[in-house]
């Protein structure tokens, strides 16, 4: 609902009063034969202010119905204002100046009508265009804020996606490993740097994409697991079985990776003897099935922390696929976690 903006309305009345004074001065000096400035000034103020008052009301009512500064509003306000100004002026002349009743129709009304139209129309037009400029400026401001907010949100999303893939702990630990490998096994260090390089490159490129292919995602996962294999040695083994036989299956980024990360962080790394991660992908009827299994510690003690990543994945699936996708998390036998993802093709 539109409310009357008191600041602009007040300003409008003040500007009107200034116009009125100017009109009174002009009329006294140039037009009227028997100049009585005080009388002309009062009538001029009464006329201008009452037109301003009724036009403001008419426009406010029009605003609430949705038409801003409509011509109908201005005309209605103008006419009502002129009638009311005539009555007020007549009252003023009758009570304070001692004129009699017959004076009303003959002079007051016709004068006010003529001057009301002559001055009222351009002044109303002046205010209406002024208001339009104010409003369009406000609109531009609003659009600008909206655009900036959207740009900021997009940047934040990109950043979040990036942070999820290149978590500081992962990066620092991995780079420390490369540094130590230079003392121990230069060839291994070289291979690891290639994997890190590829992992970072793919991660950076795809944060701007809503969808990639399953093959690309699995490629990223392979790099990720290779890096961990160098770090963890025999404690980690992994298998990726892609039975879809399709290289162009569209799939969103950051669904499999956070689940694999969870498996390592909360499943395999905390286990003294380590474990295996298996990723199986296949097509069943009209859906793509992906199962990520680890033989790690399971989700008992650290369920709280592990859960953040899993909830993010679940929400991401829901926002992309609605209720047609599902994520189920199960205990794996004898140990570990099994994550089952199903998305429509």
């Amino acid at each position, binding site marked *: 609902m539109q409310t009357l903006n008191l600041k602009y309305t007040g300003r409008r009345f003040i500007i009107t009063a200034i116009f009125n004074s100017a009109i009174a001065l002009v009329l006294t000096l140039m037009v009227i034969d028997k100049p009585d400035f005080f009388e002309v000034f009062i009538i001029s103020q009464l006329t201008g202010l009452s037109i301003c008052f009724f036009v403001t009301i008419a426009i406010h009512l029009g605003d609430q119905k949705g038409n801003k500064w409509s011509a109908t509003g201005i005309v209605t306000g103008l006419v009502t204002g002129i009638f009311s100004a005539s009555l007020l002026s007549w009252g003023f002349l009758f009570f304070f100046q001692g004129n009699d009743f017959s004076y009303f129709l003959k002079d007051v009304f016709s004068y006010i009508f003529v001057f009301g139209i002559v001055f009222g129309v351009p002044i109303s037009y002046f205010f209406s265009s002024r208001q339009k400029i104010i409003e369009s400026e406000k609109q531009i401001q609003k659009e600008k804020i909206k655009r900036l907010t959207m740009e900021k949100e997009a940047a934040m999303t990109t950043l979040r996606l990036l942070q999820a893939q290149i978590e*500081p*702990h992962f*990066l*620092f*630990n991995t*780079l*420390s*490993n*490369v*540094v*130590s*490998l230079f*003392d*121990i096994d230069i060839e291994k260090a070289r291979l690891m740097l290639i994997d890190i390089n590829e992992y970072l490159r793919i991660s950076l490129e795809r944060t701007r994409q809503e969808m990639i292919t399953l093959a690309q995602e699995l490629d990223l996962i392979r790099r990720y697991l290779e890096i961990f294999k*160098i*770090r*963890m*040695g025999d*404690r980690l083994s992994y298998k990726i079985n892609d039975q879809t036989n399709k290289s162009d299956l569209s799939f969103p980024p950051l669904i499999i990776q956070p689940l694999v990360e969870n498996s390592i962080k909360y499943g395999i*790394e*905390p*286990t*003294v003897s380590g474990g295996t991660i298996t990723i199986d992908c296949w097509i069943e009827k009209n859906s793509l099935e992906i199962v990520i299994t680890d033989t790690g510690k399971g*989700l008992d003690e650290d*369920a*709280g*922390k*592990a*859960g*953040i990543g*899993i*909830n993010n*994945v*679940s*929400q991401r699936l*829901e926002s992309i696929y609605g*209720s047609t996708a*599902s*994520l*189920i*998390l*199960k*205990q794996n036998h004898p140990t570990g*976690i099994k994550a089952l993802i199903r998305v429509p093709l």
Partner: protein
Amino acid sequence: MKQVTAIIADDEENLRISICLLLERLWPELKILGQAQNGIEAVSLIENEKPDIAFLDIKMPGLSGVAVAKKVSNACKIVFITAYDQFAVQAFESEAVDYILKPVTQKRLKTTIVRLKKQLIKQDRSPEFDLKMEKVLQVLENKEIPDYLRLIKVKTGSDLRFVPVSQVIYFKAEDKYTIVQTATNEFLIKTPIKDLENDLDPKHFWRIHRSAIVNIEKIEVIKRSFTNQMIIGFDQTDHTLAVSRSYEHLFKQM
């Protein structure tokens, strides 16, 4: 002067070997008594070998470095090795224990070695020092504060499943059980509503009744019945839930 001894514990072999090599280079007189690849091995190594210094990775399987330090309580000087970690670094500002950030650099390790040599001569074993040590370990342990409940453990047949809380539409008490309602399933758990209310993130889960908690992100509509009772309808299920009078104020501004 007797020979100074140390052990190294880190679950990542490369890092372990690399620290060994660096120490051999920078402190040739130091004798490394052994290496451990997890927390449990580290404890037995310290107990059996009684080294002067233990270099402990914080994140290790079995037992964390902090837990190892607590367990061997002042049996030797502790130097923690840690990757990027703001909290930990803050805790280390106190001088009770030393720390090295990964990747371990020669320069940083030299500083640590100088500090260790000084301390070993002084043999600082005042109760004050022990107190400081205890405090640091406590801070490091508290870092692992329990978070909000994010996965609900449910039993379905012989399967154990973990339901992400973001999939839950509402929790409702029913006899001795609590119903966990998702878009596709209904699970029963034994945790009472009252306990769930404390464990769930209050930003997303609101108690609306003595016997119900809703996920506010799943709410589609809030309406009034003809008896003026506030009723909640959801996106993904036809079920509705009544809001009891005492919780209606939660929705007043919506």
